[in-house]
């Protein structure tokens, strides 16, 4: 029995290295000067193999990359804000009125297919749609597209959390004389609190990481940190250290969100 346990631990450690290795490499690259990036033997230990510099991060701070990060932040936040309230109402409908028209399982399934739509199949028509309205390369176009695509995910998550609240609590509030809006504001949202926060975080994260739409709907004016990356590969000299820096900065929000909402994230996938 002990041997199996040892092998098990070894397996976990190997998998841990498999995950952490590339992340470590990214962080190391972001601290390198452009010439130190690739060399034989590989320079992997800061202070030992190379002098870490903040060169890449300074580049990010002083060029449009910073602007790209702020755009990502703004667009993701705006789209999440637009999507959350309507999704909350819809999730309430799907959770409480399973038999009513537009709230039954079939409509929920249709919403699910929206969440599964492949971006590559719809990016062209959306591109043409915004051109139609002369809104190509504008914030509104990207934010609205993002909110449309975040609604299915938001509703799916919120419905999961809302199913966790016993119906009797709501009916008790009904008996206490509270109207629907008051019940939502005073009882469902506070009790659902962590669930809503986790949903907002996860939907925001989904948009923070989006690439294809940002690439095609944005242009010179609207550019997110993900759609900026290809521009660092123009010509022969790929700015690897800046790519590393952007990768590190882009990875901070997911880490924070996973730390804060670990319980809710596990609970969301529990139901499925």
């Amino acid at each position, binding site marked *: 029995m002990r041997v199996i346990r040892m092998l098990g631990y070894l397996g976990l450690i190997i998998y841990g290295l498999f995950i952490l290795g590339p992340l470590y490499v990214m962080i190391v690259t972001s601290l390198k000067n452009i010439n130190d990036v690739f060399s034989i033997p590989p320079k992997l230990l800061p202070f030992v193999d190379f002098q870490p510099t903040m060169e890449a991060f300074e580049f990010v701070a002083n060029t449009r990359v910073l602007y790209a990060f702020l755009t990502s932040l703004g667009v993701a936040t705006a789209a999440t804000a637009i999507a959350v309230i309507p999704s909350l109402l819809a999730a309430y409908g799907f959770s409480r009125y399973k038999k009513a028209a537009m709230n039954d399982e079939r409509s929920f399934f249709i919403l699910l297919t929206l969440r599964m739509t492949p971006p590559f199949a719809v990016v062209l028509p959306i591109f043409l749609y915004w051109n139609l309205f002369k809104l190509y390369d504008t914030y509104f176009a990207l934010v609205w597209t993002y909110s449309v695509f975040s609604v299915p995910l938001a509703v799916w998550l919120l419905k999961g959390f809302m199913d966790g609240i*016993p119906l*009797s*609590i709501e*009916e*008790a*509030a*009904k*008996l*206490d*004389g*509270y109207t629907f809006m008051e019940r939502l504001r005073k*009882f469902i949202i*506070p*009790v659902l*609190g962590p669930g809503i926060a986790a949903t907002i975080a996860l939907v925001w994260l989904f948009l923070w990481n989006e690439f294809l739409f940002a690439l095609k709907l944005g242009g010179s004016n609207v550019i997110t940190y993900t759609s900026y990356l290809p521009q660092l590969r123009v010509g022969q000299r790929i700015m690897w250290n800046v790519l590393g820096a952007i990768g590190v900065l882009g990875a901070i929000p997911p880490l924070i969100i996973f730390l804060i909402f670990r319980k809710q994230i596990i609970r969301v996938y529990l139901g499925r």
Partner: protein
Amino acid sequence: MPKIRLVNINKKYEGLHLLKNVNLEIPNNTLFVILGPPRSGKTALGRILAGLELPDSGSIFFDDEDVTYKGPNQRNVSLVFQDFALYPHLTAYDNIASSLLKSRLTKEEIRKRVKEFAEYLKIDHRLTHYPSELSGGEKQRVAIARALVRGAQIIILDEPFVRLDYKVREDMRAQLYRLHRDLGVTVIILSSDHMDAMAFPDNIAFMLEGEIIQVGNLDAMYEQPTNLSIAKYLGLVEMNVFPAKSILDLKGTEIPRSLSMLDGTMLIGFRPEHVTLHYENTLKPDKIILAGKVKITEIVGSETIVHLDAGLLEPVKVLISMIVRKTPGEAVRVAVDVKDIYVFDAKGKFVGRGGDLIGGDIAR
């Protein structure tokens, strides 16, 4: 306090006929128990009375006002849920006060009123705690306080004791009785526990598969049950029921003449507490004497239940109101007075008691 009248209430849910033409009258200011096995439609009836659901058909009158389509607040009715349904994010105080925040009372008036009810229900020392920190009994009391504080005239409790410890139930039943007596509030208990019927014996409606099959006080249901399921449901120990034929054909038993002319297909039932140990010298004309061997004995507090194997389908259960030591296998003779027995037809409909049999009302 309004007199409640339910007229021809029907309710279907997903093909299940939950309530079949329910008619019930609940006099004002009573403590009313709606008793019945689980899934007999009690909760559905409670929810319709509270206004949480609308009946498919039929109407509800409070005194002579039709409140069928009025919401819970216009009816001044409150429901205490089986899982108490306390707001997890609010303290006990806020839970109780939640229904008053909607009224015009000032903050001070609310505080006084909540304090008053909390003290009455002996929960005032736990007001700052959250529901998760309260015990079952305490949660129940907060839920009741919340229902009463807004002046509801009718309070419905759905299986109020199911989640409580055995000993806490006894205390909570006393609380409910005191509450009804002091506040003059109509209390309706939906319960599947016959002990609740025993604790509140005056007004009981028995529900079975969505129908009210008997209304009255416990003694009436105990003495004259309308069908076999009520007879079996009421009683500390379930009633012994055997096909008449199996008793009549039993060898080694004395069958009084009055019983022998009974129709064979009928069922004879007799309660364990009506069975007495029989000793040779006390011959009585109208007694069924059964002989058998003791299977097991159970001692309950100061009473003993003896399971007797008397050659019938199932063991005969005997309840003796003192502690009696009977070893398994011991031969015992027991007697049942004919006037105590219950007679049901093959389908379980109550036909009459032993007394009617002797009087010749139940013919072959």
